[in-house]
């Protein structure tokens, strides 16, 4: 196992700058989520680490080995593709054994490792099936088994769960995390699904327009975003209108900063809670969704959102004036 270091990587496609001087460190054995909107360069970064693209400038290290000039075939990586890219002409066992056969692993060991890996992803009985005979979740497991069977230095996942439906996706998230922890492999994955990134990763990198915006543990990035983009992209942010700043307990000077509050940090009531930061708003809608409820509120013309357990929201008089309050430490400050 080994970590991955990316230093000052620049990658262009024609005139478009896909990666602009990106430096990130992917710790050994960690689960790193690359998050960003489409076109942010997250997939390009993953594919550059894999070796499908060569960067114009910068260095990449996998473990102690500089690899920026090494072709994919020799980088010793495991990669899982969005559509799984299973070999349709081979059985599950042959799919998983492909990388072993390429490495000329002896037949007996090959069989043993195929069986072991299929057990790890809980596909023991399906070795002789064809990919076409498998369900989406099973294909996903085959793709994972195929990527890890050769004990690669790093596991790269390109939107690994986006092709699954929601309930299966949650199961697979837990499963993926378990397997990653079991074998302790350095894992980098790309997603545009913030919830998935928060669930799986122990570090998150947010990309925008080919640049790294912020890197850190999920909680840190969520609680202390470095700028307005990070605040709005990972989780939702209610921006406090400038006209309302007076009288609030703020963590930074109103000059040169903007302030936001997360939807779940808010409490709602018919009277101001004077011990906390409070703002007046107009309730637009209350949406019941089982255990949780969402309230849409208009504060000085800007739309706010509150998320709370439904039982924690008091009965409110239809649509009308409400007070929102939150603890001062829950205010997020970012440079304007």
């Amino acid at each position, binding site marked *: 196992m080994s970590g991955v270091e990316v230093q000052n990587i620049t990658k262009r496609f024609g005139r478009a700058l896909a990666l602009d001087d990106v430096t990130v460190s992917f710790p050994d054995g960690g689960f790193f989520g690359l998050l960003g909107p489409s076109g942010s360069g997250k997939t390009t970064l993953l594919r550059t680490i894999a070796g499908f693209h060569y960067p114009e400038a910068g260095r990449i290290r996998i473990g102690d080995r500089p690899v920026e000039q090494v072709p994919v*075939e020799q980088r010793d990586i495991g990669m899982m*593709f*969005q*559509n799984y890219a299973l070999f349709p*002409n081979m059985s599950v066992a042959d799919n998983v054994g492909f990388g072993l056969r390429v490495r000329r692993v002896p037949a007996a060991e090959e069989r043993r490792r195929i069986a072991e890996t299929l057990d790890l992803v809980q596909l023991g009985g399906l070795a002789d099936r064809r990919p076409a005979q498998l369900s989406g979740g099973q294909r996903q497991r085959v793709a994972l088994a195929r990527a890890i069977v050769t004990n690669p230095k790093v596991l790269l996942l390109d939107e690994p769960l986006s092709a699954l439906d929601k309930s299966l996706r949650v199961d697979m998230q837990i499963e993926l995390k378990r397997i990653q922890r079991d074998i302790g492999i350095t894992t980098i994955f790309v997603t545009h699904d913030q919830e998935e990134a928060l669930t799986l990763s122990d570090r998150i990198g947010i990309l925008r327009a080919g640049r790294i915006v912020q890197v850190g543990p999920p909680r840190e990035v969520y609680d202390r975003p470095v700028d307005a983009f990070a605040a709005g992209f990972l989780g939702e942010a209610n921006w406090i209108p400038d006209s309302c700043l007076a009288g609030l307990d703020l963590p930074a000077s109103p000059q040169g900063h903007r302030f936001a509050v997360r939807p779940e940090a808010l409490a709602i009531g018919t009277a101001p809670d004077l011990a906390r930061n409070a703002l007046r708003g107009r309730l637009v809608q209350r949406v019941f969704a089982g255990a949780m409820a969402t309230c849409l509120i208009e504060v000085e013309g800007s739309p706010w959102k509150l998320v709370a357990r439904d039982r924690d929201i008091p009965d409110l008089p239809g649509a009308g004036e409400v007070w929102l309050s939150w603890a001062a430490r829950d205010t997020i400050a970012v440079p304007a």
Partner: protein
Amino acid sequence: MADLAAAMDRRRLVTLLSPAYLWLLVAVFLPLSAMLFFSLLTDLPQDAPDWGLTLDNYGQFLTNPTYATLLWKSLKLGVMVTLACILIGYPCALVLARTIRGRARETLFLLVILPFWSNSLVRIFSWAIVLRGNGVLERSLDWLLPFDIRLNLMFTTPAVVIGLVHSYLPYVILTSYLALQAIDDDIIEAARSMGASRWTILRRLLLPLSLPGLLAGAVLVFVPVVGSFMEPRILGGRMGTYYGTVIEDQFIAVYNWPLGAALSFILLAVVLLIIALASPVLKRART
């Protein structure tokens, strides 16, 4: 209720399929039946009023060993041309489908199809000009190489093979190209990420996955080449007597339509038999 729906379904099916079946009837079944009928006649009705039915025409194939010899020669020609088309066409399709992108691909593709759009007679006579003694090929080689070159390819089996390969190569390229192009790039990238060399990818993924296309192309080449007569006649000269040219002679020179038709049906039967015998092997290769 269900019966009614089923009946309506059936009626709709019949309506929708009838143009296709009508076309097959007019364009394939009727002419073939007419030929089958001819192959069983003693004489053409318009020539001899006392014509009758006979199996003699088929019997001739068995009594005169020349026909079997020529059929064998034609089958060998078919195998040779098909192999040459595969050896040249598959790598072409591979490069076209997997390496070249964008504008260049369209241009090259057009160049591949171009032989299809030129008149076959013009094509064959052009080859005659190139291949004949002191022709374009010999003169260019003479000019390039320091020693004297005497190829004299005209009126030889290689000349026939060259002409046929040129005519039928686009089939193999087209079918292989379509099959290769349909293979998902991710599959190839996945194999590369597992450390597979180009050769391994070709042998274990590209070739097996595009085999149906390659085989379709091979069949499309093999069948008409076995019955071909124009290329053998013009480029083969005295060497160019094949099963196909004999059939042509029966229709055009000797005017013995019944024998020509019988020989044609024997050819059809042999080709169908070969494909039927080969199909289990091919099917196994596909999986």
